[in-house]
Each structure stands twice: as C-alpha cells, then as structure tokens.
C-alpha cells in the first residue's frame, strides 16, 4: 500500500500543528464556537450528544496492521475501548475530549493517518472498492488514481468552503462495489484497446433528503487530466451551487436544476481554459505512486476447490465452515488465494461496524500472519483480509472465531448497514442501533438466513442517510413525529450496477413493530419467490403491492397512520 514520502509526512505533521493552534484559540476564547465549528469539522471533529466524535480517514478503505493497532490504542487511550467503522471507509471514536484531539492527531500522523476533510463542506475522504487490486472482475486497480486524487484534494485552497460536502468514489471493476452513482462525483476507470487508462465521470448523485443517481457527464477522460477536469467541475459547483438553503446545496440539486447536459457543457467550458496546465498529473507522479501498489509476494499456490476445502475441516465443523466459505470468502485474481470478510455484524450484541480494542489488535495480528499486513474496510462496515492463501483459510477461520468476527452473514439480512443514530448522533431523529439489534435477534436462525439469500437491509437514523437506507433492498429511516421516534420503510433500493433508490411503502411504524413488519415483508418474499430468485428480483417482478399489504395487514391503522407525516 501507499507509504508517505517526506512531503506527505510533512503536510500531515504541519496540519497537526495548525489544528492544535486552532484548538488552543478555541479554548482561550479568541475563536468563538461558530467560527471554530467549520475548522474542527474539516478535521473530522463533531460535537455529538455526549462528547466530541472524531472521524479518522481510511483513504479508499486501505489500512495496514500497524495503523489498525494505532486505532486500537486510540480507542483504548482516548475513548471507551472501541471504534465504529463507517459507511464511507472512515473510523469514528465517540467519546473524545476536545483538549486531547491534537494529541490523537499526532498519534495518527506517526502511522501516516489523519482526519483531514472527513467532514465539512469540502472534498471528503475518497472511497473505493474494498477489493481493489484483488477482485477477480477488475479492469483496472483504482488505488493509484485514488491516492493521486487524495493528495490533490488535500487542503485544496479553492474548495475548502464549498456550498456543501463533496464525496468522490472511484471504481475500476465490472461490478460496482462503491455505490458510485450515489456520490457527488463517481469516477469509473477502464482501459481502452490501446491500454490507455480512461475515466468516465458521473456527477450529481447523492442520498440524503433528495436521493438522486448520478449522471454520466464525461467519457474517455485520460487519467492524467483528472485534476484540471475536476477543478473545472468543482469551480462550477463552488460558484453556482445554492447557498441559500442547506437542503438544496449539494451538487445534485445544481445538476438537476441545470440538467446534466447543461452542467456538463459549463464544466467543459471551464475546463477548456485549464486543460493543458500543469495541474495535470505527470507520468513520473503516476510511476511514483503506482509503485506502491504492486502485487504482494504471492507464493505459487495450487488452487483448491471449495469441496476440497470443506473436506479438510473436521467433520463436525464442515457445515459451519462451508457456510463461512460461501458467504464470507470471495474469489481472487491470483490462483490459490482468496479474500476474507470479517463480519462486524454479530447478531444482537453491538452496533454494526463496531470493533473493540481487543478485536482490532487481534485482527491486526491476523492481517500480519495471513494477508501481508494489510486490511480493507468495506462501506458495508466490515473488514477484509484481501490476500489469504486458500490453504490457510481453515486455520484463519479457527483463529478469527475467537474474535467473534466469523458469522457467515455477509450479504444476508443481518449484515445490516446502520449509522450510529440517535444513541450518539446529534443530527439523528431516531435511534438506529436498537432497531438493527432487534432485527438481528428476530432473524437469528442461520439456516433461515441462508435460505433467504442476498438481501440488503440498511438503517439511517435521519434523512442525512449515513446508513444508506435509500439503496437497501429494505431501507429503514428514522423520523421524528411530535418528539417520538418512528420508522419509515422503503423497498426496492439496490447498490451495484443496477443501483436504484428504494420507494416508501406508506406510513411509518413504531420501533416495536419493526421486527414484525420485517417478518411480514420477508414472508411475502418467501411465499412468492421462484426457485433461486433473490429478494430484489421478486420485488421487481411483483411490485410493492403484496409487500405493502402484508406490512399493513392487521396493524392498527391509528398507530401506523400517526407517523405518516414525515
């Protein structure tokens, strides 16, 4: 993975000094809270319900074992012994003291990490495919472009106070695993017949209050001109994005108002004047950065069939191991290797995406032993060991069991994406975590979960949609109705190449009703599905009606209806 050079390290060190001074001015009173707020946000520091929350960037989801140990120590020393992996490949610490935040940043800088631009109205942490560089369906490894753009966007002076936050995602694979179309800018990489690396640019996607899928505004853009093209795009947004209404300030509103063609035309006009400047990446820069993303020293391993792997396990463990192989192990570019997903979604115990100090330390050791000392963070809030020899899968499974991260529920109903919700977040209208817990407890039968197959269930505690409910096959959105917490259900959302925004099925429900409503929706699917038809396809074939009827059948109208106005 990428290692900082002297320039990167100096920049991060100097940023720590700058932020320390800003915090000191806040504490001595010369910097009022209102003016400090955007500054602390640009360094990932939120003021939440109970304390400050620090969001640390894990650029494009890539993490070394050494870095994970530092995160574990930060959780132990400055927090309450755990961290929360987010839907945007960041980690959050929930119990931070303002006075200690500069010291945390200094600790992070020592392992080439930072919290720069993890919040604020600026270019946020750039996210990418958690299986970059190893996925069997990859066209191009997106990580060099991600890293070059990370550097380009870091402390960019012109775009630090945009109308609203700005999120990039980059993919280079056949199957999109980045929710590309729900980003302010999505960059899809591929190579043409001549081997040139080209980008397609999608703009104006986003979730939140007005979920919109991004529009293709530029094709076949050579990789090296991304800085000038993105400068043009951001400049158009910075100048003309709305600033009068926070809910209409994202680029998606501007793209929608102008129309994608007109927006693309304006960007093109701006770009024409700067496209040949030396903002653009040079080949030497590519060479320097790309040299960090060479393949690790794979051994020549013989591919092992799934059946052989299962047979290698003791007989009484074969069923469980087989299930883990099926759900939590993914195919790899290199024969004899596989990628392993550790589930941070154990049923009914902690928040989705949480890991304790003890788990992080143990997982870092496993990464060292089995995966060249590197890990990935998925936007589904799980961890990945990307380069595991198939022959060692059984051994790894045994060891990881002790950390409670081998539940074979990846991609299943209980692999719930959820934001921290009202338990922590001061923006939330309702709690997310107890809902996730109740659903996981209700659907605790692994046989049944496996029989149901792939279903994504995403929960957001408010319309900011950090829990990505819009793209869940089943989405749950917390809403506030006269000070009470209610939950609206959407169906039909999907991420990936068939990305879709879910549709609201009707009036919202009380928290205690949600597990039963889920059961009714799932039962409807089971009743109507054909042989191997996944949930989303049954939904598309039948439409919302049977699901809606089941969800509202025999439920007292008044309790359902009172939550209607959202």
């Amino acid at each position, binding site marked *: 993975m990428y290692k900082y050079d002297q320039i990167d390290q100096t*920049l991060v060190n100097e940023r720590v000094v700058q932020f320390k001074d800003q915090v000191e001015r806040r504490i001595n009173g010369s910097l009022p809270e209102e003016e400090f707020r955007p500054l602390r946000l640009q360094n990932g520091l939120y003021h939440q319900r109970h304390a400050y929350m620090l969001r640390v960037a894990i650029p494009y989801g890539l993490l070394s074992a050494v870095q994970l140990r530092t995160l574990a120590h930060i959780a132990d020393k400055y927090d309450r012994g755990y961290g929360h992996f987010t839907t945007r490949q960041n980690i959050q610490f929930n119990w931070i003291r303002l006075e200690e935040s500069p010291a945390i940043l200094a600790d992070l800088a020592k392992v080439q990490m930072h919290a720069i631009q993890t919040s604020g109205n600026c270019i946020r942490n750039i996210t990418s495919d958690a299986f970059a560089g190893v996925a069997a369906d990859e066209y191009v490894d997106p990580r060099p472009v991600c890293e070059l753009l990370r550097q380009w966007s870091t402390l960019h002076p012109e775009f630090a*106070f945009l109308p609203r936050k700005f999120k990039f995602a980059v993919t280079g694979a056949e199957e999109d695993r980045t929710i590309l179309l729900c980003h302010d800018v999505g960059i899809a990489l591929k190579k043409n017949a001549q081997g040139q690396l080209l980008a397609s640019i999608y703009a104006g996607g986003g979730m939140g209050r007005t979920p919109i899928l991004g529009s293709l505004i530029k094709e076949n853009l050579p990789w090296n001109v991304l800085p000038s093209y993105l400068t043009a795009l951001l400049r158009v947004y*910075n100048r003309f994005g709305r600033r009068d209404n926070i809910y209409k300030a994202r680029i998606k509103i501007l793209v929608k108002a102008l129309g994608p063609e007109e927006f693309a035309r304006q960007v093109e006009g701006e770009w024409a004047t700067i496209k040949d400047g030396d903002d653009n990446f040079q080949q030497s820069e590519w060479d320097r950065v790309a040299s960090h993303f060479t393949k690790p020293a794979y051994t020549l391993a013989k591919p092992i069939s799934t059946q052989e792997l299962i047979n290698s396990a003791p007989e009484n463990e074969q069923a469980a191991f087989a299930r883990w192989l099926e759900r939590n192990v993914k195919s790899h570019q290199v024969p004899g290797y596989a990628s392993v997903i550790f589930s941070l979604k154990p049923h009914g115990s902690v928040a989705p995406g949480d890991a304790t100090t003890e788990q992080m330390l143990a997982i870092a050791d496993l990464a060292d032993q089995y995966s060249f000392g590197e890990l990935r963070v998925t936007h589904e809030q799980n961890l990945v060991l990307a380069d595991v020899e198939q022959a060692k899968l059984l051994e790894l499974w045994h060891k990881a069991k002790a950390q409670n991260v081998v539940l074979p529920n990846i991609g299943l109903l209980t692999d719930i994406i959820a934001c921290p919700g009202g338990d922590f977040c001061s923006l939330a209208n309702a709690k997310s975590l107890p809902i996730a817990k109740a659903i996981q407890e209700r659907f605790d039968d692994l046989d049944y979960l496996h029989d149901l197959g792939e279903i994504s269930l995403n929960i957001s505690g408010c319309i900011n949609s950090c829990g990505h409910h819009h793209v869940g096959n089943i989405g749950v959105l917390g809403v506030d109705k006269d000070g009470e917490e209610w939950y609206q259900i959407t169906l039909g959302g999907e991420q990936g190449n068939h990305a879709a925004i879910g549709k609201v099925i009707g009036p919202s429900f009380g928290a205690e009703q949600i597990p039963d409503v889920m059961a009714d929706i799932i039962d409807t699917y089971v009743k109507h599905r054909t042989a191997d038809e996944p949930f989303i396809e049954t939904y598309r074939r039948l439409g919302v009606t049977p699901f809606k009827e089941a969800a509202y059948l025999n439920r007292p109208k008044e309790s359902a209806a009172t939550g209607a106005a959202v």
Partner: protein
Amino acid sequence: MSQVNSILLYPKGGKPSIIANEWLVWNADESELSKLDQKQKVLVPFSWWLANGQEDTKNPNSELAKRIAAKSIGVWFAADDDILKHAAVIEAGKSIWSLVAADFPIFRDGRSFSTAALLRERFAWTGEIRAIGDVLIDQLILGARSGFDSFALRSDQNTDVALKQFDLFTVTTQNSWRDRRSQLDSQISSQPNRAT
C-alpha cells in the same frame, strides 16, 4: 461604507506585513460617489460599475475619469457576481482599476476563492487582489493560495496570529497561484504523459 485601519499585505514571493489601509469600500447605496473626497481611494461595487462605470469613463471631465487618472478607483466583486459573464469589462478594467477586491459575506462562503483564482488564471490579473468582508485568520492560507495578496481582516482578528499563518505549511500537494505542488519540485525530471 467601510474602511478597516490596516491591511495584511502578502505579495507573491514576498513576506507578509501589516500596512495602513488607504481604500474605502463603497456600497453604492449610501451617499453619492461625488461626495467622497477626490483623494479618497474608493472600491466601488462591480455591479455599480457595470451600470455606471463604462459611460462615465468616456468623458474626461467626469467624476470617474478624474479618479482613474488619480489612480484612486477600483472595484469589488460580490460573492455572486459572475465575472466570466463580463470578461470584456474586466479586461478593460485592468488598465483602469488600481485595486480589485472580492467579498466574503460570511467567512464560510467560499465563492470568492474561485473569483480570485479566475482573475489570476483567466484574466491574468497581475495587480493586487484584496479579500474584504468577513475575513478571518483561518481563511488566510486558502485565500493567499487561491489568488489574494492582501486581506482586510475583520477588525477583531489578532494580526500577530494572522501573520504567523503563512509559515504553517512548507509543502503542498496541489498547484495554486502561489506555488506548484512540492512533488514537482522534488522530482529530478518529469516526462510528458504517456499511457500507463
């Protein structure tokens, strides 16, 4: 109408310093320009210039012509002025205006960073560009790199702290008006782009 006492001047390639302010920011909605002392250096709103500036400059005896001759007039751009729509006016202004400024209606409104960048890049503006309005210490680095070289800091800002801002960063990872990214300078040779 407003006039701060001092200005933080930070010329490209130079050192930052605090100097006395000579320029008055005129809002056009209070009093008449003619009522201001002829010797008073005045920044007029760009929108006012569009409405009044061009005609008046043609008459050598006009109020504006005298001020142009005395080098005592400039314009300030509001955050929502679309300067690219008025390229010809700005080109002509290069030889008339002694100073231009861009306004920050509130510190967290970043439009004027793009205005300054466009003035430098697109219009090759080589004269001083001043940040006015809600200009705070923590915008200085951003402004200085986007294209500003003078700052009318809000009066409550500590100038000692302000002057130290420019020493905070010794490296940069993207080009700006002031400097190229450090990576380019650290490389021995850089070849033109070829396919990867």
